[in-house]
């Protein structure tokens, strides 16, 4: 029996996820600063140091930071299995991830091998601890639902991506001669197509129906989609790793990958259009924007497979729309739902005194207007992204957009935390 998932104290202390969430926006600001200090238009060249640095500010410092915090929160609740020593794991992942991300990105930006050489062991440590703790907890989970499968596959892909990333960083730092281009392709596919994509899919199965009262995802989809995406992804990597090989299997696998991910996006949009809860909701709008961006990323990538002069350009656009349009929209939308809920949930545990003092409801924790401003700012940033590879002006707007988003999100999260602290103080006062 799956009794494990009903133990009362499944949720970790609120400090565990909040610590990660509070650190994440700092890296959006850092990404903007690194882009601003790069030479020329950083988006014009895939290998520009400023772009590589900013990419990892966003992927490691922002996305991985939020995802690690969210997984440590979500796995115990959805899967019904505690993480081992949640506080210790939180510190031992958050600190090395922060330090490692700063060193890696400044190492890229300043082309300093010493910094790269310090960064990869720290990042390896953070991910090793996180991955072992989550695998341990997923293995113990009694509930074998599709979300668990998707999260498991996501974590395994992430492990592969991180291993390749470490290898390349060490290679750059020490001047090893390894096939960087193939390794980078595999690294990017595993990180984005595996790690990020599958985690978002797994979480969607739970939160899309729950937040908006939509119908559930069809059963065939939740059973097969995540494994099918991973298989397509791995097949597309075989020729990369075993050169020289014919290119057509890779092409077919990549086409299948993008068809599957677009199916997910289209079905999610369709379910959301059938929602029974029809009130305006910033999280919902962020989520739908993310799905549209995912479809755009698929179209850009598919178009890049055609033999035209724009291939590289389209590939770059696809990575940018996937990262900033799809992943960042969904993650920010989720933060605006999770943080107010966590604050409310942990305050409500104050019991009778909490009710006497009066705890804020979810809309009194982060002002809703800020969320809508943020959405507009994000849409503006994304429109600039579409032109950023061509127009220097647009590249500047993307940089500015990231800076403002980091500041706004940071203010929102700190407001949430201070509402929590103030109310907790009042509850404690009432009980003495």
């Amino acid at each position: 029996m799956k009794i494990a998932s009903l133990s009362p104290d499944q949720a970790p202390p609120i400090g565990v996820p909040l610590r990660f969430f509070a650190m994440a926006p700092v890296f959006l600001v850092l990404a903007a600063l690194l882009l601003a200090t790069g030479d020329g238009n950083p988006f014009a060249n895939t290998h520009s140091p400023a772009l590589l640095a900013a990419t990892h500010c966003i992927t490691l410092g922002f996305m991985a930071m939020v995802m690690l915090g969210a997984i440590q929160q979500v796995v115990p609740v959805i899967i019904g299995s505690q993480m081992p020593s949640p506080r210790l794991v939180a510190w031992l992942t958050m600190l090395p991830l922060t330090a490692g991300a700063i060193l890696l990105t400044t190492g890229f930006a300043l082309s300093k091998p010493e910094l790269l050489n310090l960064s990869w062991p720290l990042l390896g440590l953070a991910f090793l601890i996180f991955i072992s703790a989550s695998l341990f907890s997923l293995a113990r989970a009694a509930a074998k639902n599709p979300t668990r499968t998707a999260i498991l596959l996501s974590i395994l892909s992430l492990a592969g991506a991180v291993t390749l990333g470490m290898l390349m960083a060490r290679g750059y730092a020490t001047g090893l001669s390894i096939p960087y281009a193939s390794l980078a392709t595999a690294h990017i596919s595993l990180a984005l197509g595996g790690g990020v994509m599958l985690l978002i899919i797994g979480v969607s199965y739970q939160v899309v129906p729950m937040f908006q009262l939509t119908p559930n995802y069809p059963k065939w989809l939740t059973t097969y989609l995540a494994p099918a995406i991973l298989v397509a992804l791995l097949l597309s990597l075989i020729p990369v790793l075993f050169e020289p090989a014919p290119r057509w299997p890779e092409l077919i696998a990549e086409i299948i990958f993008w068809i599957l991910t677009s199916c997910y996006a289209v079905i999610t949009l369709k379910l959301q259009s059938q929602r029974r809860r029809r009130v305006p909701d910033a999280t919902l709008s962020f989520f739908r924007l993310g799905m549209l961006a995912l479809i755009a990323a698929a179209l850009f990538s598919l178009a890049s497979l055609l033999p035209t002069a724009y291939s590289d350009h389209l590939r770059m656009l696809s990575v940018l729309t996937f990262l900033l349009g799809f992943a960042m929209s969904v993650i920010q939308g989720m933060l605006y739902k999770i943080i107010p809920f966590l604050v409310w949930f942990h305050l409500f545990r104050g019991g009778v005194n909490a009710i006497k003092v009066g705890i804020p409801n979810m809309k009194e924790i982060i002002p809703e207007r800020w969320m809508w401003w943020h959405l507009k700012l994000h849409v503006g940033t994304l429109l600039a992204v579409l032109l950023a590879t061509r127009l220097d002006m647009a590249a500047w707007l993307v940089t500015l957009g990231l800076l403002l988003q980091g500041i706004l999100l940071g203010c929102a999260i700190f407001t949430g935390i201070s509402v929590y602290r103030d109310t907790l103080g009042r509850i404690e006062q009432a009980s003495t």
Partner: protein
Amino acid sequence: MKTITEFMAADHVACDNEFARAEEAALANNWSVAETAFIKFRDDMAHHFKMEEEVLFPTLKSAGGPAGPVHVMLMEHAQIKELLKQMAEAVAQKNAKSYGGLSETLLIVMQQHNHKEENILYGMADDILANEREALLERMQAV
């Protein structure tokens, strides 16, 4: 013959629909509709809780079902009842902002709760109480 899971999950969906109707009207400041819809929602929730608290859970417990999960469900019922009480105040004061914040909170608590019941607890009840299911469902509907 419906299983307990099917019967109770359908009741959850019915309550969700009432929830959505009341919220939409309240946020539109359409208080005559909101009040009727909210009262219907609150009464249907109360009836649903009664079926669980007075019939299903005690029967499950005395048939050797696990006490821990039932205890957690009851704690969550208390949370939901508190939120419903605060929502009733918001309706009385015609305060759309306060209603919206509370209903947002209630939705997540309620959905997580229903999810756990539908995926774990009701399934246990269907297993343990298979022989007396028909009588049990009748007793539940009668409360």
